[in-house]
């Protein structure tokens, strides 16, 4: 038994190594962070520059892009098992749907 456990550990470690090869390089992470920073700058710019009715849709799109990049790359959902993505996305969709309905029933959209 005592010899068994190290073997399994080694297998696990190997599996990790294989995964690690699929992972992006640090340079890639830095490039994504720069992209996120640029988007954030663009978001903040909307506070100073009036872009009229396009404001909220633009903000939402930028938010979703940032969200997506962090989840896909930093949280590794792009490379990891789809099971993880399913749990997260289920939570996200459920939360969005349920609370949007609740906000609608509270007449949030019409009264702000």
């Amino acid at each position, binding site marked *: 038994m005592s010899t068994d456990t190290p073997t399994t550990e080694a297998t696990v470690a190997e599996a990790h190594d294989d995964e690690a090869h699929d992972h992006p390089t640090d340079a890639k992470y830095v490039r994504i962070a720069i992209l996120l920073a640029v988007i954030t700058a663009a978001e903040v710019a909307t506070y100073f520059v009036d872009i009229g009715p396009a404001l909220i849709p633009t903000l939402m799109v930028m938010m979703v892009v940032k969200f997506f990049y962090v989840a896909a790359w930093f949280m590794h959902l792009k490379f990891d098992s789809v099971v993880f993505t399913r749990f997260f996305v289920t*939570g996200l969709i459920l939360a969005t749907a349920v609370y949007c309905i*609740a906000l609608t029933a509270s007449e949030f959209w019409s009264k702000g």
Partner: protein
Amino acid sequence: MSEQTAELTVGGDAAQPLGVYSRPKGGGGWRDWITTVDHKKIGILYGGAALLFFFVGGFEALLIRLQLATPNGTVVGADLYNQIYTMHGVTMVFLVIMPMAAAFANYLLPLQIGARDVAFPRLNALSFWVFLAGGLFLNCAWLFGDAPDGGWFAYSPNTGVSFSPGHGMDFYAIGLQIAGIGSLISAMNLIVTVLNMRAPGMTLFKMPVFSWMILVVQFLLLFAVPVITVALFLLLFDRNFGSNFFNPEMGGDPLLWQHLFWIFGHPEVYILILPSFGIVSEVIPTFARKPIFGYEFMVFSGIAIGFMGWGVWAHHMFVSGIGPISVGAFTLSTMFIAVPTGVKILNWLATMWGGKIRLNAAMLFATGVVSMFTIGGLSGVTHSLSPADTQQTDTYYIVAHFHYVIFGGALLGFFAGFYFWWPKVFGHKLGETLGKWNFWTMIVGFNVTFGPMHILGLNGMSRRIDTYSPGFGFELWNMVATIGVFIIALGVLFFVLNVILSARRARGLPPEPPDPWDARSLEWFTPNPTPVHNFDEDIEVSSLDEFWHRKWTTDENGKVVRKATAAEVCQAGDAENVHLPSPSYWPIVMSAGMPLIGFGLMYNLWLCVPGAALVLMAIYAWVFEPPDDPDGPFGHGHDDHDDHGDAEAGDESASDEGAPQEEAASVE
């Protein structure tokens, strides 16, 4: 290693202590129980605690009915009455039905999927102790003379400080918060268990319906508990820190509470009922001697109920002024959710149809669920129609409805489960004669109690009133209902008597031979009662109802013939050297800190300090606890756990809600 030859001694001898973090050695008796991480013991603990709270909640029900037996009742005053019905509801929902479901889930889910334990045994223990801490904390309110009095759904602004100045609603908010943490941890644990710990060949669609329903319930808990967490925090902050969420004087919005509560509350309804549906789906095929009719439909209707349960909550709010569009939309979605429920009822009937039915106590209770839940379901459909609901809401018609689904559905299902799985858990059957008395008194008492409430409600009797004047035509049916509740009490007494007498009868006798019912699922591969290590070896699963298919086959004429006896198929339960996760002190220590924090929030914030310190200390002790029994036979002791880094694995999640992964048990 020399230890290789050593045998596992359960609750073994005194150990050489390894320092503060060494793991408990059991030692027998109560120490085994408070440090256990065995899913079976935890299941029994859940069941025992739930039964205890059931007696408390039942006693409250008796008081309610005594007060309402005659007009101008004077058994209790209005104030005490408010507390009693509130605590009756809260106790039955959160401290009886939910933990009883957890009892069945804990005991049976790992067995049914062929696992040796849950994915995180220590977290499992933590869920129980946290639940118990929450339940005891809530009931402490009685000792402080200030029980919650705002109804189980605690509508604001009734629950604000101005209308509920005592500490009752604080007990409610904090007690449920603590119990909720337990439910959430348990849900996460069981989801991982089902996904990762199934026996070889046991695909999701070879799992018994009970396991499926428990899985659906864990998902509902996973996503619903955080919603009530938010609601309870906001209530707590409103009451204790002067925030204005639900305070209309400051522009707050009582409807926000209703939305949050029922976004949680409606999935909660399915959290209460689906485990019982699962139990019935195991009992009926066994005693009708037929496979469950439409297995896929049973599973998918359960999943559909789980999903649709999220889109119907505002039907609890039809008269709160949410506007015609919301009312219309929620009317429609509510009517639709009756469809998957109907599918289940029809499939149970179809399973029984043409079967060789053995009408014993377990089966009687299961048929009781099918029939009583149908009545409750139909009255439920009548509230989905908002015009009708406007008449029915806040009357005894609603009280009748939800007792038909929760008592007639959930509770009777648990009784079916008791009779069915008692030999698995305790090694002897419950008596059939008393069992039948138990069933008939309960079902008659139940209908005598709650049937008349339909009439009372339609005649206009409001729920939650502490008394009524003579002359409204309420006298007769209230008296009948009160008589009924004592018949129920008699039924419960028969059950208690049955438990005691059966245990006494079984004393000194060998345990029940394996497979007393000619059952179908994996838990019956083990002898009775289940040995501590569950299975001697993993079971290769190739079909749904694997156990049944190893005993029976069809001959060339399509006739079912036995190919093996149960004794040949069952495992002997005598495996040795089974590596089991070691017990731990920290789950109970950590949960003990939580009520202290709760009392601190109410009486003196300084009290939070020792509470939080206890929790923090327990978390760190937990994380750095040796991964396994240091004196255990398998070399997982102090010397090599460093190499595995087990102590650190999951450091993070333990600091939050998680815990180190306990190694899955393994067999030599």
